[in-house]
């Protein structure tokens, strides 16, 4: 199954460096666990407009070390639940990066695209080619493709479906 051959399109929500998992989803909501419930509180302490105004397909842009802090998968789940199609940052904290791939939330490391983008810009993202086009700036940015193993997880729709097919093939 090829999940991401279609380019993703959406508007940018831009945030700074070291966006930690406590602001993505504060601990007071960790007594919930579904993407829908969590999405309502996503980014609440940093940007109260986000959850109310985010549109399906929108893109989050972060600076360095996006997703640092706790291992809570609630963070990428909240972002995915909010309808975000892709997160692009200068760099990611490693657990957040794994979690996003594992739950099938597309995620790209691309410092140039992250610096270029501003809140409200419209982006077109081609995951397979690692290409990001910014309609406002007219810039096209490319980033290195995923290693084949990670691409296989992404294409399967996440680690669970990937592992299921692997177990079935045994």
């Amino acid at each position: 199954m090829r999940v991401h051959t279609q380019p993703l399109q959406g508007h940018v929500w831009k945030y700074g460096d070291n966006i930690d998992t406590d602001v993505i989803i504060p601990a007071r909501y960790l007594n919930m666990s579904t993407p829908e419930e969590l999405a309502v509180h996503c980014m609440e302490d940093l940007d109260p407009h986000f959850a109310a105004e985010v549109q399906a397909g929108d893109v989050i842009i972060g600076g360095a070390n996006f997703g640092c802090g706790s291992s809570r998968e609630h963070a990428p789940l909240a972002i995915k639940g909010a309808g975000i199609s892709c997160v692009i940052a200068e760099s990611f904290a490693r657990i957040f990066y794994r979690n996003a791939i594992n739950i099938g939330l597309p995620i790209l490391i691309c410092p140039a695209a992250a610096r270029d983008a501003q809140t409200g810009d419209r982006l077109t993202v081609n995951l397979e080619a690692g290409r990001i086009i910014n309609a406002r700036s007219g810039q096209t940015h490319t980033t290195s493709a995923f290693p084949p193993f990670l691409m296989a997880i992404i294409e399967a729709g996440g680690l669970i479906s990937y592992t299921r097919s692997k177990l079935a093939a045994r």
Partner: protein
Amino acid sequence: MGRTLAEKLILEHIDASASTRLGLHPGDLVEVAVDIVLANDITAPIALREFEKLGIERVFDPQKVVLVADHFSPNKDIRSAEQCAVMRRFAREQRLPHHYDVGRMGIEHVLLPEQGLVLPGDLVVGADSHTCTYGALGAFATGMGSTDIAVAMATGQIWMRIPETLRLVYTGALKPFVGGKDLILHTIGKIGVSGALYQAIEFAGPVIDRLSMAGRFTMANMAIEAGAKAGLFAVDAATEAYVTAANRTARPYQALAPDPDAHYAKVLEIDVSQIPLQVAYPHLPENAKPVEDARGVRIDQAVIGSCTNGRLEDLNIAAQVLEGHKVSNDVRCIVIPGTQQVYLDALREGLIETFIEAGAVVSTPTCGPCLGGYMGILAAGERAISTTNRNFRGRMGHTDSEVYLSGPAVAAASAVTGYITSPEEVIT
């Protein structure tokens, strides 16, 4: 070419021929076999939901799956009660001997080493970012998300990238009261919160050789606060004495050390003689400064505990400072022993009495206020000094509250005066 400690530990857990191993290097993705898989009352419910989707009946080995109800437990509300109930049900169905519920539970990263569940040479994955704490034992331990943990619980295997290593060598003589917490805060201040992103840290040098196990756990615990995947210590006599202590299990273990000719991404030498007691300002652990710079910052709450500083040694230091003093009328001082055993030892040593006489409260083991769960939430505009590991915005309560991080001596001294204080000012 020699191997770093991280490389050795990971290669020990790969099912491959000696020649294949020889060809593996930092940056390569490998499948590793895990010795312990851990989840808690926040991360287990999602992990168990994903586990079900895998269509597998049983966990790969009930002895190797550890579940701890520590974050919102004893349950703070109905939703958290439901989460613990999900975990409890799973533990019963799967007959998991290592499910730690109220009465037996403690903060996971204090509890697992204490119970002898993690030993040198192990490879541990946990759905909690501070799983890296066990690096103090010479185990490769790292935090992952719930989905990874579900797969590890089902298959006993998980993918991982072999990390490069940053070696930190500590030399010199420690100043009075300066401990593991000050060393790690200073280090994070130096290299930054992403200073070791995707790398393993190897802590070494004569200062580390003399450091207590509690101090090592504290340092390994905060490796993640520099973005590291693991924070590792070579096994020495202190480690061996710890793991063979009376109440821990006697599973065989493997003591590994890095090769002298290992290749490091970077080696940094840190002279501790110049490091004063540290305080990390809000809202990042890298904002570390000498305690003197923070002197006078008024506080409303002092928290002494957590997986960073909730061990007997930490409580001993706090009690030493509080002995014969009173907590300021303007401060709520909350002391949280890391486990039931720590609590009992502290009780027997008279520390609990010292805390209560000083006007502190002592809680059952729980993560509680560390992550803004309960048992000490801050209101808007309030400020805490805390021996925990994170001071992100809103971490301990209202988004307009502040957390300053320190070791137990500074937290206890500040509780007495009502403002950030060096212990030397209180103990005269």
